[in-house]
């Protein structure tokens, strides 16, 4: 099984890997917003080229990209078909009662490209950032909200602890399952309700142990002077560096150019 604490992260040393995770997050969001503002096919194609170049920069094999796109192929096909057949306009060809229009094709292509770019960009974010990096990025971006009472630091701490304990609890689940199976528990057969019932002797010990762990962890954290998020500093504090500014500038420049390209008569 893949290591869940790393999520989909692919270790690397590319320019994108070296960006501050906040910048990666914001640029991805900006890219997605911009995708919905583009309204010509040329702009969409340029957006696709942009994200493909980003993938090339990170040196992620095309196979990975295709794999992340696979689950959404049915959605793309479905919306494309709907667009093709139901948008009225200049008929290209028709049979029976259905006609395919030029506008329909155009919008189908737009929609498909938009969805592909959307998935590709968000996958790129998770390929280049660990969940922990994303957590600290969100913590830092939302930190102004702690002034209006949102416990941003505590939420981030909860997220970190969850990530830390998921592998431990998974391991424990395996152990409990093996223990119950060796006592004759039957977990793999029967109908849905029977199988759900068979899970009880797994879930109860798991919960009991999770609560005991939580108790001990809270104690250990207290012993290490944890006192809520206030006044905490960080070993690896996030820092915006030159590279981040350059990335933001390149991204903005590309956006402006593509917006201008939208004005071309095409």
């Amino acid at each position, binding site marked *: 099984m893949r290591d869940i604490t790393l999520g989909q992260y692919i270790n690397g040393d590319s320019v994108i890997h070296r960006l501050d995770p906040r910048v990666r997050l914001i640029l991805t969001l900006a890219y997605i917003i911009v995708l919905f503002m583009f309204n010509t096919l040329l702009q969409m194609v340029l957006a696709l080229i942009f994200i493909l170049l980003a993938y090339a920069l990170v040196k992620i094999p095309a196979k990975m990209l295709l794999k992340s796109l696979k689950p959404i192929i049915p959605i793309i096909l479905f919306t494309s078909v709907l667009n093709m057949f139901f948008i009225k306009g200049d008929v290209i060809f028709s049979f029976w009662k259905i006609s395919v229009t030029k506008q329909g094709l155009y919008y189908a292509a737009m929609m498909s490209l938009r969805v592909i770019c959307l998935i590709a960009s968000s996958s790129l974010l998770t390929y280049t950032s660990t969940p922990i990096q994303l957590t600290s990025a969100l913590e830092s971006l939302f930190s102004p909200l702690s002034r209006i009472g949102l416990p941003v630091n505590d939420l981030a701490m909860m997220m970190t602890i969850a990530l830390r304990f998921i592998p431990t609890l998974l391991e424990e689940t395996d152990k409990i399952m093996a223990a119950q199976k060796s006592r004759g528990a039957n977990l793999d057969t029967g109908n849905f309700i029977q199988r759900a019932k068979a899970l009880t002797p797994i879930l109860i010990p798991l919960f009991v142990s999770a609560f005991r762990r939580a108790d001990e962890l809270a104690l*250990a*954290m207290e012993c290490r002077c*944890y006192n809520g998020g206030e006044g905490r*500093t960080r070993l690896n504090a996030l820092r915006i560096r030159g590279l981040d500014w350059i990335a933001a500038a390149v991204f903005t420049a590309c956006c402006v150019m593509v917006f201008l390209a939208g004005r071309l008569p095409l």
Partner: protein
Amino acid sequence: MNNLIRFDNVTFSYGSRNVLENIDLEVREGEFLAVLGYNGSGKSTLAKLINGILVPTSGKVYVDGMDTSDENMLAEIRKTAGMVFQNPDNQIVATIVEEDIAFAPENLGLDPAEIRVRVDDAIKAVGLEKHIKDAPHKLSGGQKQRVAIAGVLAMQPRCIILDEPTAMLDPKGRSLVMGVIERLNREKGITIILITHFMEEAALADRIMILSDGRVAVNDTPKKVFSDRDRMISLGLEVPPVTELTLNLIRNGLPLEKDTIHPEELIDSLLKMKEEEA
């Protein structure tokens, strides 16, 4: 030398029953104290009283002169007396070793450069430099426990209380962890309070305290404590394996010392006997 930790007639109860009764205890700075006692004799409770996790029902506990019932002093007390628990899995907070070790200094609000120095020192002290960027759940039990010790060391405490730190480890992990504990005591002068069920670990201490029925039953040097085997048995404990072996050899007529508590001592005396024979 002055007393770093002082129990002044401390009684503690969780409900109606007293778990600890009229405990007086003094631990000198730089001392290595082992605490023994059968299951449920109140050892963990004693440990939690030291750094203010629990507060005495009556009496006082002082850490470097600070009263643990004074809430304003708690941060300072916990910084002075760090605590390591039995299960290493349940005391590691972060997903990367170095970030876990940085947890306490981060809580203390130190600046990143200072945290870096402390993390590097702490990881070196427990000999895990190679694993600084690893995920804790990929380490062995002994390594995890050393990460936990490093996490406490990063506070630069003057005293570390360890509550059965080796109970869940295999023999190799156990001896590595004990090696680290001894080194911290000898080389850095950190006061150690070690709660354990392993008599050979207690033999390494300067002094042994035995709890029984919530009272201090014995408080003496390991040699004196372990030379009285009958008393140990009556307290629900035993003597170190090497002492047991020596007593057997004495019963078989070998002229050995009754208070042999370290394997090296026995080896030395046996070698000496052999030389004299030759």
